[in-house]
């Protein structure tokens, strides 16, 4: 197979397409920056809540005595702040901008999206503070009090409608793989959310059907909302930054359809060993194992696209974050498939091993890719480059070292926690004592991650405040490349 190359464009075509992109970015500017900025704000709130919860698990006297800051509430509030706040708002920012760019269409009625952004933020606010002040639901991922739900439904409805509207007005006849993922996400997530709300809160199914619905939702939020948007983002950014098309169109088709088919079947492995019909867990184990297909398809596709261009990771922050996320995607998904096997789950279920896995997915993969996307997207929206390469370096290394430490500490601790839980001769107190140093290490990792987030937020605020140099030449690099950046930087016809 001949290696694909970027199409050759005349200087005039280049200029025309740059002007078109500028017009599209201008139409996106206000709403996408609003979604992105509120995402960053919730990331900071979520980090603080995470640190509180983490410290409390090894030092129970830390800030004890207040109902509002008790571990259970802070832990639930953390998940809402980062899951429904940061990651979901960043997902919306990604979806809107990528859809406009790839459809070569301006955002229609951009001002109405501010309503969606406001509703969403009110929803997250009610969720986080409703939980803190005692209205939590104890349904994992759906802990928000019921009065927050209408805000999400309305906000999500607007986002989905707008995304489809942009898609329908597309000027680009070729529909790129990222657009398939985005179309899937904006259709799947509202349905998922409504079914879960309906069957758990509005007309609750009782008994074990409830945890079944719960894990169908909880797992699919990751697989059919965050994953498609983040993988779609990587599919856009990697070719765009290195200046060559995606390795294989057919692999991307296989990756997309197998994800659509198998991921939605995988959720019940969270209930292995639980009081549910045996066939359900088996069906999900099969679904989880089949997930190896889309994961390998995406992994091979991204790796082959990157091949020969890995040296660019030294320079480009957007690429480095994205590639870190793409690698974590492969790792976390393969790990997830094996965790769904009964023998494996017998040890790791009910342990911190699962927590480590969840953070490798939600942070190592999804969050890192969104960081990458933001480093690429925000300058194009605000017209300013990032003011400080040092801040970006601090952000990257804190995030990368932080999540790696986090994952290692809890994976090792969680594995042995599971082995000891399975052995009734080990007294429970011994397991608690064994875990404390691992949980302490996790807190240290949490501090690192938070420092990274502060650096990121500082960069972000500086950019919005107009502190970076005007966008004219190349982007802000970690270090200036030895050779000038390839001229194809902006001009790849991924769209």
């Amino acid at each position: 197979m001949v290696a694909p190359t970027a199409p050759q464009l005349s200087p005039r075509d280049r200029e025309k397409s740059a002007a078109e992109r500028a017009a599209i970015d201008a139409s996106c500017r206000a709403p996408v920056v609003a979604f992105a900025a509120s995402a960053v704000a919730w990331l900071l709130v979520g980090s603080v809540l995470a640190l509180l919860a983490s410290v409390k698990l090894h030092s129970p006297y830390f800030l004890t005595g207040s109902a509002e800051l008790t571990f259970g509430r802070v832990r639930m509030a953390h998940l809402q702040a980062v899951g429904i706040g940061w990651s979901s708002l960043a997902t919306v920012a990604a979806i809107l901008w990528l859809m406009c760019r790839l459809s070569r269409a301006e955002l229609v009625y951009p001002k109405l999206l501010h309503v969606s952004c406001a509703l969403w933020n009110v929803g997250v606010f009610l969720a986080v503070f409703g939980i803190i002040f005692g209205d939590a639901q104890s349904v994992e991922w759906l802990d928000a009090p019921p009065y927050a739900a209408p805000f999400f439904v309305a906000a999500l409805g607007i986002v989905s409608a707008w995304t489809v509207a942009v898609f329908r007005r597309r000027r680009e006849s070729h529909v790129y793989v990222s657009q398939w993922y985005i179309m899937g996400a904006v259709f799947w997530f509202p349905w998922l959310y409504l079914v879960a709300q309906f069957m758990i809160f509005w007309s609750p199914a009782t008994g074990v059907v409830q945890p079944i619905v719960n894990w169908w939702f909880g797992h699919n939020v990751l697989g059919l909302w965050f994953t498609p948007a983040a993988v779609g983002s990587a599919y856009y950014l990697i070719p765009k930054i290195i200046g060559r098309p995606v390795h294989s169109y057919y692999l991307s088709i296989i990756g997309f359809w197998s994800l659509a088919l198998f991921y939605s079947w995988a959720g019940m492995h969270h209930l292995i060993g639980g009081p549910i019909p045996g066939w359900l867990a088996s069906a999900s184990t099969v679904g989880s194992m089949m997930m190896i297909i889309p994961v390998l398809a995406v992994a091979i596709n991204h790796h082959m696209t990157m091949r020969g261009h890995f040296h660019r990771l030294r320079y480009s922050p957007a690429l480095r974050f994205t590639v870190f996320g793409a690698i974590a995607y492969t790792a976390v998904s393969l790990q997830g498939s094996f965790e769904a096997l009964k023998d494996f789950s017998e040890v790791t279920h009910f342990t911190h091993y699962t927590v480590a896995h969840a953070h490798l997915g939600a942070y190592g993969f999804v969050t890192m890719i969104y960081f990458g996307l933001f480093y690429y997207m925000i300058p194009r929206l605000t017209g300013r480059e990032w003011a400080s390469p040092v801040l970006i370096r601090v952000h990257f290394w804190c995030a990368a070292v932080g999540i790696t430490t986090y994952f290692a500490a809890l994976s090792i601790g969680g594995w042995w926690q599971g082995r000891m839980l399975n052995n009734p001769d080990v007294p429970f107190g011994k397991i608690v004592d064994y875990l404390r140093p691992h949980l302490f290490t996790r807190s240290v990792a949490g501090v690192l991650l938070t420092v990274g987030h502060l650096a990121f937020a500082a960069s972000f605020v500086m950019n919005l405040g107009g502190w970076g140099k005007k966008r004219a030449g190349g982007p802000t690099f970690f270090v200036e490349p030895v050779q000038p950046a390839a001229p194809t930087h902006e001009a790849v016809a991924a769209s």
Partner: protein
Amino acid sequence: MDRGMVIFLGALLTFSSSWLGLILLPFWQLRDEQPYKKDDGDEPYPRPLQGKALAGKKVYQNNGCMYCHSQQVRSARFGNWWDATGEQKTGADIKRSWGQRRTVSRDYIYDNPTMLGTMRTGPDLANIGVRNPSEAWHHTHMFNPRSANAWSVMPSFAFFYTRERVVGARSDKALGLAREWTVDPGYRWRPSAAEWDAVLKERGDTILAGQAEAIDIKTAEGKKRLLDFWLTTPEEEYQVVPNADGDALVAYLLALRKAEVPLPEAKE
């Protein structure tokens, strides 16, 4: 794939398949489950929570207890371990006396929300009402878990309790905890040297009077010994009593008796 309709229909079909298979099928399979009665005259099992226990479920729910405590007993064949002789065994949940049998879907028919849990930072609670039926123990443990187990990392739920001056007789709901736990609710208290000197000056004789053997409080060692004793006695003027939330939460824990009645489908 250049047509939106193809993507839409494909996404609809793949997703519907899982919705039918993972949600509707189990919903139909499980919706007719009825409480179990061995003989016609027997009390049906399970029974819905009522009164204080029902209110306590809400407290459990609002405070995220299930993020550290599961409520499911796993099968006697679940989870491998090896005993001292190297023999392979299974079924730690039951051997840890978290329940006499595994729990099955019928144990949960009245649960809403059904808090199976996902983490065992603390022990399983499906059957805690049978395993530890002492209301007093649960209250002291809830007030400060370190008073029961030094290794515990469970949060103190002292905010479900009130520390109040004793007026007349002590309340029969008052916790039987010593002053090291009650003086500063939520923490383990120990007076500073100056504070201890002040206490000794004021009522050292009374405290000394309760001692079996003579303690010389002029020496540092004697002072420390008397302090250690004093800390393990209850406060005379104050008592700690549960508020409505604390009462309800313990009532809920005592009502958790999921693996108590044998069910035919739980046999293995």
